[in-house]
């Protein structure tokens, strides 16, 4: 886990899962992102850190076109998934979001559905007939490290779970769709430390199977869970490097100030 292969020539950025190229975004007239070019390494955990309003959430929303849900958002530039432009005319955002799943800040299981139905919600919304749904439910819940806690209460409402369990349920719901990339927008900010630790542990488990991008304003969390870290400031990408580099010897003064807490 302590990435000793830093000095080795193996470059995890060489064939990125996703890549943004001069990405700009605006909310109305406010420029939220300014020319972000970032490569997200395949099967690794990428953390995006930065102060509030630095554009980190906007950025990951641009990765599965979730920003389009908010009226008045515009973008310019390109985002590639496996080197295919996701803003191309042939790409359907609905299909894209199936491949690039998302987990939100606040756990948001569907209140009208049971735990089981929550896991299956994505598949059902996609109109897929799930004949082996029991299998799908178990697999997703196991991957989300929730199965042991809920296997006997699958019929219970999703909201009857604790906050941390709800968040893992949301992760299971996203994983049930077999995404290639999992975007997490501050997934622990509404959780207590123990629940956060479980989510972090889960992110460790997901490494190697999924490409994970996590936005967090908890620097320690970014340090603990990620392989590479991007530091955003005022809509710009200040520094992007291996996590241990960012947290032990960052290249830029702004990053140093932020990770040491001397911001201002």
């Amino acid at each position, binding site marked *: *886990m*302590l*990435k*000793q292969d830093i000095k080795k020539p193996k470059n995890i950025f060489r064939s990125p899962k996703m890549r943004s190229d001069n990405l700009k975004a605006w909310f109305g007239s406010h420029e939220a992102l300014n020319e972000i070019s970032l490569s997200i390494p395949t099967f690794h955990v990428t953390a995006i850190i930065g102060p509030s309003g630095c554009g980190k959430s906007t950025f990951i929303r641009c990765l599965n076109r979730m920003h389009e849900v908010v009226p008045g958002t515009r973008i310019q530039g390109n985002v590639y998934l496996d080197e295919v432009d996701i803003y191309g005319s042939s790409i359907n955002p609905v299909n894209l979001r199936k491949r690039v799943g998302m987990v939100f800040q606040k756990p948001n299981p569907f209140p009208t559905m049971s735990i089981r139905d929550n896991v299956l919600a994505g598949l059902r919304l996609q109109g897929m007939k799930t004949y082996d749904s029991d299998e799908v439910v178990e697999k997703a819940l196991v991957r989300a*490290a929730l199965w*042991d806690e809920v296997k006997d209460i699958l019929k219970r409402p999703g909201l009857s779970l604790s906050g941390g369990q709800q968040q893992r349920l949301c992760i299971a719901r996203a994983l049930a769709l077999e995404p290639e990339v999992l975007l997490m927008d501050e997934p622990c900010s509404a959780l207590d430390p123990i629940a956060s*630790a*479980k989510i972090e*542990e889960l992110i*460790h*488990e997901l490494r190697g199977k999924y490409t994970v991008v996590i936005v967090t304003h908890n620097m*320690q969390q970014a*340090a*603990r869970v990620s392989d590479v870290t991007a530091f955003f400031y005022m809509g710009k990408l200040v520094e992007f490097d291996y*996590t*241990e580099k960012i*947290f*032990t010897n960052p290249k830029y003064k702004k990053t140093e100030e932020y990770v040491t807490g001397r911001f201002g």
Partner: protein
Amino acid sequence: MLSTRKIKSFERDIEEITEALTQMGGMVEKSILTAILSLNTRNTRLAKEVIRYDQDIDQKEIDIDRLCINYIALQQPKASDLRFVTAVMKINNELERMGDYAESIARQTLFLAKKPAWRELVNIPRMAEIATSMVRECLDAFLKRDVKLAYEVIARDEEADKMQSKIYKNLLNDMLTDKENIERASSLLLVSSKLERIADQSTNICEEVIYLVTGKIVRHREKVHALSSPSDS
């Protein structure tokens, strides 16, 4: 189930660091033994090997240091994890110094090899044995978090000290009997003082182990002790 996995993720780092430090200890031990062997057998090839090998030890020290720094930066260890990583950094440092001593013993071999052969060494190899066994045992105490063993090793330092003064007396005798011996004897004196330092540093490592396990700081105690009761020594 999750809680056990949680420990794993932390322990993966701790295990990695522990393994690296164990390797480091093995390297240093090997280096000391080889240096003494080269001295004993007047084998310059072995001595050169030891000198070259010190670079590997230095590199290992840097690696472990980086592992520890990354661990602190990324995992923000607390309590026993924090004591662990600070202890490792100090032990790492002590081991690297021991490596340097082994190198300097090897250099004495090179020096003595140019001189005509002298008498057989008896006490120095015995002292080297004591010193290396202390190194081995202090690392053992670290790996097993064995406070009792750590105290035992600290106690054995006296043995090393006695041996050192015995060697010193013998060599002084040699020097007094024949001026010709001075060069060679002072060289061996140097070797024995290096061995004494190695034993000393093993006790330092043991003190770190005691701190790691109990959180108690036992360093410099004897000094305080010695100051308060001068009649003791």
